Every structure is written in structure tokens, then in C-alpha cells.
């Protein structure tokens, strides 16, 4: 099973990377951009999808400061 884990800074925690991108876009002429956040993407093949959540809790994300979302993709790679 191919899986994708999206990891984001928790809402309410200062996200300086998102803020920097948000400031840069208008400078390039892209108006009307707001609420930008930058996170991390992990893609992996797993035999047992039940392990994905504990993987996220223990290693892939830091639940104190990050939210994660697991997506199951069709087929392996």
C-alpha cells in the first residue's frame, strides 16, 4: 500500500516559513494570497496500514507542534 503523510504546523503556532512565502508572492505580482503555511510531505510503501498512525505519532510528526493527515494511495510504486 502506498501512503502519503501530510504534516503541517499546528494552527496558532507561528509559521515563519509560511509568512515568508506569503510576503514573497505579492512581490512577484501574485495578489490576493493569504493564510500560507509550509509543511512536509512523506510518501511511503507500507505492508500494514494500521502502523501508519503510530509511525506518525512516534517519528514522522511531532504531535506537540504538528498536525498530520494520512492519505492512502492506490497501488504501490
Amino acid at each position, binding site marked *: 500500500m502506498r501512503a502519503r503523510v501530510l504534516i503541517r504546523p499546528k494552527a496558532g*503556532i*507561528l509559521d*515563519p516559513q509560511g509568512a515568508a512565502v506569503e510576503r514573497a508572492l505579492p512581490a512577484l505580482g501574485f495578489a490576493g494570497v493569504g493564510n500560507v503555511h509550509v509543511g512536509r510531505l512523506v510518501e511511503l510503501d507500507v505492508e500494514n496500514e494500521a502502523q501508519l498512525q503510530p509511525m506518525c505519532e512516534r*517519528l514522522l510528526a*511531532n504531535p*506537540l*507542534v504538528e498536525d498530520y493527515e494520512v492519505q492512502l494511495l492506490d497501488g504501490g510504486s
Partner: protein
Amino acid sequence: MKFGVLRFPGSCDEVDALEAARRVGDAELIWHGSRDLKGSDAIVVPGGFSYGDYLRAGAIARFSPAMESVIDFAADGGLVLGICNGFQVLCEARLLPGALLANENLHFTFRQVELEVLNSGGAFTRACALDQCLSIPAKHSWGRYHADPDTLAAMDSSGQLILRYAPGQNFNGSLHDIAGVCNERGNVFGLMPHPEHAVDELIGGSADGLKIFESMRMTVEGVHA
């Protein structure tokens, strides 16, 4: 007394930590793959970029065999000092509350910082006076201390906020200007600035960092200031 200083692939401040510890006691390096803490009375988790800081700073080092032993050592009441990357490792290991995030300015920053001692009664600061200022260098990209408001309030009331950046010195955006914290029991301490780089006035212009190592020696040897 004897300090054990961990060394991970990617550590870079372990030799300075070793030399600083040797000014107050014996010290030996401990390779990350070893579970044997070599009879150490106190452990230093040093600065650097353990395991390349891949994924998150400290996230992978936290699962090393040496850290498994350090977690047991801390549970038995042993003194554990985490400096910079070591602080990040101790937070990832949940030996300390909170987490360290990217500096607010997104830059790697290296500067001398002035730190206020908020709690001089503990195992790591008993050689300091209350409200004493320590001048110690800091150098990091991921040093913005964060914990949720309830955790911070509990830490504040139980005296776990040990060091604070003096006014105007908080370059990384840490909540409440926090530079160093301990666990509830008071035997695990982490800070972002580098006391091991401030042990000789001739080299760093300040020997204030020695106070941390000296405090640990006093604690282990039962000396009270």
C-alpha cells in the same frame, strides 16, 4: 565525578563539552550506538546536527541505543544536560516538555547572549545567584522554544523555567524569552545557548558557562551553595 558526553554522527560540540566537563571532573565520550553509559554520574547530550537533523532536529537521535539508556538513567534520577541539539533531542525524547521550532527570523544566528537565571536553587544552576546574568554564545537555526499555554503555566509555577534571554536578547522568538528549562523532577535540563563554549575568558571573553558544569558537580557530590 564523571560526565558522560554522547557523540552522534553529526555531533560537533561534543569535544568542547568534554573539555568543559573536565574542568570540574572526569569526562568520557559515549558513542550513540552503545547502551553502556560507562558509570557516568551525569550525561551531556551535546550540540551539533545528530543524524543530519533529518526529519526534525533530534527526531532520529532520540531513538539511538545510547538515548534509550539515557532515558532510563533520567528515570532513575540521573542528571542529564542537553545543549542546543541536545536540548532538541531531550524534547523529542519527551524528557523535557515542549519543542524547538525554526527561529522566527528563519536565519542561522550566532551571537553572544545574556541570560537571566530565574531559578538558582536547582541541580544545574546552584552555583549561580538568583537573577545573575550569564554571558554565553548561542548558534542555531531551530531554537524557538514552544509549549502550549497550560504546560507553560505549570512549568512556571513549579520553577521549571530556569534561564531566560535578557531583554532584547531573544533573537529566535522563544515564547516568554525562554532559553532553558528543566523537567518537573529537576534532573533533566536543556538550553539552546552553549555553556561549553564559555569556559575560558581568554577564548570566549566569558567563563560563565562553567557555572552550569560546576552546579552539576555540586549536585552530584552533595555540595550546597
